[in-house]
């Protein structure tokens, strides 16, 4: 394509933005909590990767290791009354709301104790009690659904918001464009969060779009937007705070473009550097230097004096919790055959 535009500049250059985060005036305990959330996601996804490698998990698992800061930064401003929707790469969005770890692991293994009763697997999670209202893998499909959730929030009049997580690839689906317009025209409290990891499956964004920044779609639809470093939990949190507050106040939708990168392949537990049309070992190594977790711990150590022991203590708790969740999942039973028909219509099979 002629004239591809690198509109993201440093945000898309993994040599930049690799240092310790600027923690602004955020409280240390709050920041340590974000560390815990991000590490929980990372360790949980590593455990899922292990289940896939061992052959225990068969359902397609799309892992978001490297992208943890986005969901954690956004979720910091959400509560259980809000309505979060996600897509195929949804573990982080689910866990960042503190949805149950064991429900996720059980769902990955297709067990009746899973978040979706074992009916969905990794790509279909559900925990409305904490605000996670569902993920499904048709690219773009939950975006208008989140807009409708926003319509429900507006009609309810309780200041709740709906959130749609999606990727840069999803922006190529026409429904994104329709959804942005509808949310704008009806002034709905919807936060669109695009995790721009510069890839859709095997294709680099420069093979799919004329610019690497997708916020231009929000601009076209006159939706208030922020383009930020998605590997900086502080930056994500600030942008989310702003736009969510506006949405709650009735000012209509907002859009976050969080630039990030996934460390693993499109699906499954491998790096897949051979699969991407441009993705290379060098690119991946470079991006790992922009690790959202390490940049936070560096900053917490350097400017807040948080010691290694505090991190280690948290890590130990996380490992234990993840191990327990995996054990729970393994020990759980599969759904009974009868649900195959019972769940089709209300009141059971027709």
């Amino acid at each position, binding site marked *: 394509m002629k004239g591809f535009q690198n509109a993201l500049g440093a945000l898309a250059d993994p040599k930049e933005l690799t240092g310790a985060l600027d923690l602004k005036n955020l409280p240390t305990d709050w920041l340590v909590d974000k560390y815990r959330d991000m590490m929980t996601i990372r360790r949980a996804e590593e455990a899922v990767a292990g289940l896939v490698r061992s052959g225990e998990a068969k359902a397609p698992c799309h892992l978001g290791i490297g992208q943890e800061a986005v969901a954690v930064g956004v979720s910091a401003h959400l509560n259980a009354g809000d309505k979060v929707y996600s897509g195929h790469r949804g573990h982080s969005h689910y866990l960042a709301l503190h949805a149950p770890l064991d429900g996720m692991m059980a769902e990955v293994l297709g067990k009746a104790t899973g978040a979706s*009763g074992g009916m969905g697997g990794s790509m*279909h999670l559900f925990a409305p009690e904490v605000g996670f209202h*569902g993920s499904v893998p048709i690219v773009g499909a939950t975006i208008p659904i989140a807009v409708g959730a926003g319509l*429900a929030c507006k009609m309810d009049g309780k200041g709740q918001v709906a959130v749609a997580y999606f990727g840069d690839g999803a922006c190529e689906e026409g429904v994104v464009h*329709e959804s942005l317009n*509808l949310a704008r025209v009806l002034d709905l409290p919807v936060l669109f969060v695009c995790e721009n990891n510069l890839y859709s499956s095997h294709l680099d964004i420069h093979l799919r779009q004329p610019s690497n920044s997708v916020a231009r779609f929000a601009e076209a639809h006159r939706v208030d937007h922020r383009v930020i470093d998605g590997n900086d939990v502080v930056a994500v949190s600030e942008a989310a705070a702003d736009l969510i507050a506006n949405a709650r106040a009735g000012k209509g939708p907002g859009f976050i473009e969080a630039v990030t990168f996934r460390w693993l392949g499109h699906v499954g537990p491998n790096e897949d550097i051979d699969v991407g049309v441009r993705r290379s070992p060098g690119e991946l190594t470079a991006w790992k230097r922009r690790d959202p977790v390490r940049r936070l711990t560096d900053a917490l150590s350097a400017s807040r004096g948080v010691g290694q022991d505090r991190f280690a203590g948290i890590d130990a708790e996380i490992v234990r919790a993840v191990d327990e969740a995996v054990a729970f999942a393994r020990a759980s039973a599969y759904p009974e055959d009868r649900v195959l028909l019972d769940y089709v219509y*209300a009141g059971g099979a*027709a």
Partner: protein
Amino acid sequence: MSAVSYADAIRHGFEYAMERDPKCFAIGQGLWSPWYVGNSMRDLDRRFGKERVIDTPVSELATTGAAVGAALNGYHPIVVHPRMDFMILAADQIVNQAAKWRHMLGGKVSPTIAIRGIVNRGGEQGAQHSQALHSWYAHVPGLRVLMPATAADARDMLIAAAQSPDPVMYIDDRWCYELAEELAPAADIDVAAIRPMVRREGGDVTIAAASYSVTLALKAADLLAGDGIEAEVVDIRQVNPLDPTLVLESAARTGRFVAVDGGWSTCGLAAELLALVAEGVAPSRLKAPLARVTLPAAPAPTSKPLEAAYYPTAETVRQRVLKLFG
């Protein structure tokens, strides 16, 4: 009391549903226009306000998706598609989403959505403004598909759809809009209780149909009476899930069966009805092969004489039935 037309009955259904349930709202193209959906929603925006009767941009997919989203969050939206042809653009949200969310998320959530698709054909409107694609939606588990054939059903099924715990396709045909009858007071309706019913009794042949095709079947039955043949007419009403009991009982009794449908033949509703009878009635009870009356295997034409050749009439049905006695 005076007769109420099918079109007005639809509007009464909206009024009842929206009055009873503050969580019920309508959304779709043309809802603020006096002439758009054949007057079947006239003045609803004035009565309930433009916040509950929402006219939308030309965005079938996102509009339907937004209704699914509202439905998943405690509302009972009725999405209106002024033509089934345009609704194809919303198929992902209908088939991949609305039909599946309950099942694939473990039975814990329900898209309580009604999706109204209008069949609007004839009048030289042509191939992209004439389709009756109910058979597509009947193919998809998780969707309920209602096709009212009378003014009473037009109202009552609208209410059932608006109150349904499952996603419902409510499919009305503008060729029915002039049908009129006196209506009993409106009441809540359980969608699961909507089942096939006999519209006319007869012992010689069973004619099964839905929506406007019931009108054709009834007219054909009148003609056939003149031929000395008593036709039983079964109105299917809920075409998915389809309760076959009545159809099987009637076909076994008459021994002759014809399905009439306003859609195409291949993999259509008429095929399903024949298949049900072929599976469920012993061949020894059948006095003739089963038969279908459907559209020819062609897109809808525009030109007047071609339209006349394209759409089956009561006479087409009569001729097909007569052959079974030949």
